[in-house]
């Protein structure tokens, strides 16, 4: 089997207070995938994500980046964080500068780039998220959705290989979600590996190509989206409901397995209309 880009094995983490957050967790992040980490609220997803670029140091377990065990020295961490970019759920936790351009330049300058190079990276990242027109706006005058995209641009400007997003759609309206996912899809198509945490089964079902179901400090099952989300036992154990789109497809008698059904709502609606027309 091919070595994943980032591999987590037997990860354990106990909070300073003594509460155990992760208990022997395994996770594989393969190059070029859109991986959803699916779990209920408060299940410790954020803690897991903080481990993925060394912001939390595990009590036990191993993390390998491109096959090499990661280190926690200053230099190793810098290198690691350049390759794995993490975007927090709350953009105000990541934005600190007065204007958008200044904020996005922070990461590239930390990489030791010159002002000119950093400026180029900023332009590139803003373009990728379609927010070039916000470059000189004051950070505090942006809407929540705009802030979220600026936070993503700030990480993207460091050109990471893996983008890790904590609940990227939380707090966005459906228009904002569509917009954001569109931009992320473009990034994905240009080669970025995406990992995102969510409690939204529908989002994972329609958008991720792999899903890891997370519950009580372990990954219950990881694999191809339709396969994992058809596993009722795993979902029940993780206190998640199966996606509605999947249930309807199954009720229509469509066998859902890897690649057999396009998982979009449009595809399902087309199928439904076809069936209804057939009944007349």
């Amino acid at each position: 089997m091919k070595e994943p880009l980032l591999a987590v094995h037997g990860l354990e983490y106990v909070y300073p207070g003594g509460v155990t957050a992760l208990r022997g967790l395994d996770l594989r992040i393969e190059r070029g995938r859109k991986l959803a980490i699916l779990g209920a609220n408060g299940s410790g997803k954020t803690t897991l994500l903080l481990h993925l670029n060394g912001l939390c140091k595990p009590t036990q377990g191993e993390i390998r980046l491109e096959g090499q065990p990661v280190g926690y020295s200053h230099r190793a961490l810098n290198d690691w964080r350049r390759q794995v970019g993490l975007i927090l759920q709350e953009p105000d936790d990541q934005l600190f500068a007065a204007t958008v351009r200044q904020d996005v330049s922070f990461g590239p300058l930390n990489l030791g780039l010159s002002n000119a190079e950093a400026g180029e990276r900023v332009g590139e990242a803003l373009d990728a998220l379609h927010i070039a027109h916000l470059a000189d706006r004051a950070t505090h005058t942006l809407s929540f959705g705009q802030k979220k995209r600026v936070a993503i641009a700030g990480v993207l400007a460091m050109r990471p290989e893996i983008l890790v997003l904590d609940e990227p759609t939380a707090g966005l309206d459906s228009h904002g979600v569509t917009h954001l996912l569109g931009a992320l899809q473009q990034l994905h198509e240009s080669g970025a590996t995406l990992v995102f945490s969510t409690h939204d089964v529908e989002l994972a079902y329609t958008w991720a190509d792999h899903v890891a179901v997370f519950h009580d400090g372990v990954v219950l099952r990881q694999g191809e989206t339709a396969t994992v989300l058809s596993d009722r036992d795993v979902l029940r154990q993780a206190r998640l409901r199966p996606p509605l789109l999947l249930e309807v497809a199954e009720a229509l008698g469509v066998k859902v397995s890897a690649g057999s059904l396009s998982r979009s709502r449009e595809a399902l609606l087309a199928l439904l209309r076809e069936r209804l027309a057939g009944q007349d």
Partner: protein
Amino acid sequence: MRAIDHHAWTNRWRDWHPVEKGLPAVGLLTLTFVLPPLSTAPLVLASATLITVYGAGIPWKTLLSVLAAPAAFLLAGIPFLAISMDFTAGIDLTLSLEGLRLALTTVIRALAAMSCLAFLILTTPLTDGVLLLRRVGVPAGMIELILLMYRLIFVFAERALTGRQAQAGRLGYSRLDRSVRSLGLLGGNLFQRALDQARRLEIGLMARGYTGELCVLSPPWELSRWRLVAGIAGISLIGLVSSGLARSLS
């Protein structure tokens, strides 16, 4: 406060080098203080107002509301300047020509000075001025602190507002004693959240390679020689005219 900040970020002269805006503000302010007020102050007031409204495109209403508060204080002070009191034989109030003149010069001079400052704060975001400080050698740590505070003021102002609304929704401000109690709780809560926010911001910045220094790109300002010359010429002209006026008046 919000309105000032909004216009500072969006006015027509937003992208000018802060020095180009600081020059007329400080220049006119200096004229107001060194030249005779009766001839200079009206000219300064007029020109500062005109460049604010017609140059930078700040609405009249905003400018007037910025000037209104200090103006109210000035007007309230007029009687105390104009009327002289004498307590030697009972209370004797006299309105002297000298007193009136003093009141007039004080008011008009203060208003002119205010209009210069209003021009500056309405056209230049606070952070531009702070970045300028960095170029003249103020320590980086201090500048980072000011910029972070500026950013977080808005984060906390929003939390304070929603917190207050949430309390008001549960009748937290329906009586004086409850108001005091609610305000105290809100303050305590904000303090806790500030600590929490600081911790989370640190994590967020570490994820972006933060190693103890908040370096960002400076705005691409370029000093325009033309604007500087125009500014100096304008100030000199106003200075000359007002000196001439002062001489012909006296």
